[in-house]
């Protein structure tokens, strides 16, 4: 629990993962307001999805706006929790505790569009 209160925390996966694209890691920022249940759920869901789909090519930063309110300004954060995909471009915003995996994948552009 305590670890999640830190300003930024990156989780780097084990090496030896498949390279998905020429670009490097994905940078994902999760904005929360303290260790609320929604925040914890979101982080848990996020880790699962990333482990599943990105296989290590990612960096998750958890930003606690209660500690640093001004950091939400650039990304125009209103709703919490919000996941912002900083890299690869374009920037994508996903609101909610990420329980709806399908939508998360659509939002992150990870899902193949079904016809």
């Amino acid at each position, binding site marked *: 629990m305590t670890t999640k209160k830190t300003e930024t925390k990156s989780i780097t996966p084990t090496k030896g993962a498949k390279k998905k694209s020429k670009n490097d890691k994905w940078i994902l920022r999760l904005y929360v307001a303290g260790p609320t249940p929604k925040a914890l759920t979101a982080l848990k869901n996020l880790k699962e999805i990333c482990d599943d789909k990105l296989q290590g090519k990612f960096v998750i930063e958890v930003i606690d706006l209660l500690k640093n309110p001004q950091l939400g300004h650039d990304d125009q954060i*209103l709703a919490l929790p919000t996941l912002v995909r900083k890299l690869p471009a374009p920037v994508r915003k996903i609101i909610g505790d990420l329980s709806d995996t399908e939508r998360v994948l659509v939002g992150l552009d990870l899902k193949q569009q079904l016809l």
Partner: protein
Amino acid sequence: MKKIKENPETTVLEKSPTGIQGLDEITGGGLPKGRPTLVCGNAGCGKTLLAMEFLVRGATQYNEPGVFMAFEETEKELTTNVESLGFDLNKLISQNMIKIDHVFVERSEIEITGEYDLEGLFIRLNYAIDSIGAKRVVLDTVESLFSGLPNHMILRAELRRLFRWLKDKGVTAIITGERGDETLTRQGLEEYVSDCVIVLDHRVSEQTSTRRLRIVKYRGSSHGANEYPFLIDDTGFSVLPITSVGLKHNVTCDRISTGVSRLDTMLGGKGYFRGSSVLVSGTAGTGKSSLAAHFSDAACRRGERVLYFALEESPAQIIRNMLSIGINLDQWVKKGLLRFHSNRPTFSGLESYLTVMHKEVNNFKPRVVIIDPISSFIIGINELEAKSMIMRLVDFLKMNQLTSFMTNLSSGGTALEHTRIDISSLIDTWLLLRDIEIGGERNRGIYILKSRGMKHSNQIREFLLTDQGVDLLDVYVGPEGVLTGSARLAQEAKEIATQTMHHQEIQRKKLEIYRRKKAMEAQIAVLKSEFETAEAEALKIIAIEEQATKQLAKDREDMAKTRKADAPPEKVNSKKK
């Protein structure tokens, strides 16, 4: 029966002054402090400007910093937009008195994946408020969130929470919202923000648009409940409260000259009362503006300021036309004693014009206000509105003890004592200029219909515009009625001729008498000289006779002597006998 305990500490609702001219009067001190106020209206009503002015004046006049959360415009756009009101936002931002936060909500960028709340907004707002210690907050306009975030239930719950949070934070907030069809705001914000609700309206009637403001609700305070017109110009908002607070204006007994000395005489010898309302009516071309020019000239000569509202002519034209009757208004304009304001009322609507007049009077601080002509205020068939406006204007001027001079154009067919706007009861002194048509020409006559509080002449005088200004002459009332113009001149000539004739007659008679006198005197002289001659002759004869008698006596004596008469002649005489 229980006795109701009275709360010993009754708290009065504290108010946060807006600094907006007129609004503080209507609300009884300003917006409710520490509570949110809802400002709603259609597009282009001025909600953002009102909110911004509230913040800016809070920062500059009341030393209360403010935060502006903009959901629609960016910081740059806002700064540029309010520059036209004369607010320098950049300076205030650099002084940390105002903070603008643009919240950008783009629907397409957002994917909703589960439960969420709007804590981010709270944090952001909180941060902004704390960073400058803001006491005033504006949210403009929260309804943008409704289009950005799909789940309205969460949104509404969060908004309710937000307004409660704002109250707890103790900031005075303005929330703006778009006008809805049936509800006050499109999204029904008035459910949550209901301490004070102000509605702005932008109405078009008879092709002129007026902006109006109305306080629909103000919990905990009395407020003006009518619709008040307001203006947005280069100094910001101005709301015009209705000024008729009862007819309790002070009066003075000072009199001021009308500028035409003969007219002063007609008005009890001294002219108009200071602070009274004067009306000059007449048909076209009778010289009303000329009287106005005389009055301004006289006032400027006394060093008083004159504000001239010219509703039909341009100032340059007025100055040129008055030069032709010998009044130089340009010199007073140059000295800053006379100011013209010329705009047709159709340009901005009656209420806006009234607000403009208020502003001008407050800025220039004149002692005389001239409105030429008030009949311009009738646009279409709005006589009632025009009357109400003029009533308010006259009230306002009287409260400030300003003398008002108005001219009114009467249309030819109506009776002259009837003004289309029917304001005769508001007027203290009423001069009438009428045309007198006789013998193939029109001349002007002036008479005083009424002048409250003073003795005035009831005579019609002939009104002439000469090179030296306005001149009033006696009219002749002859067997044909009033004679003016050339008929008067003819009559005058006739009378002069008659007089001359009499004069000559008298002269002639005098001459005759003189001559007769002279003749008589001559005759007397002749008789006298004759008499003198005769007298002289008679005297001569008498002298000769006397001489002769003497001589005789002497001769006798001598003879007696020679005849040796010793005896005295008496004895001889007696002896001899």
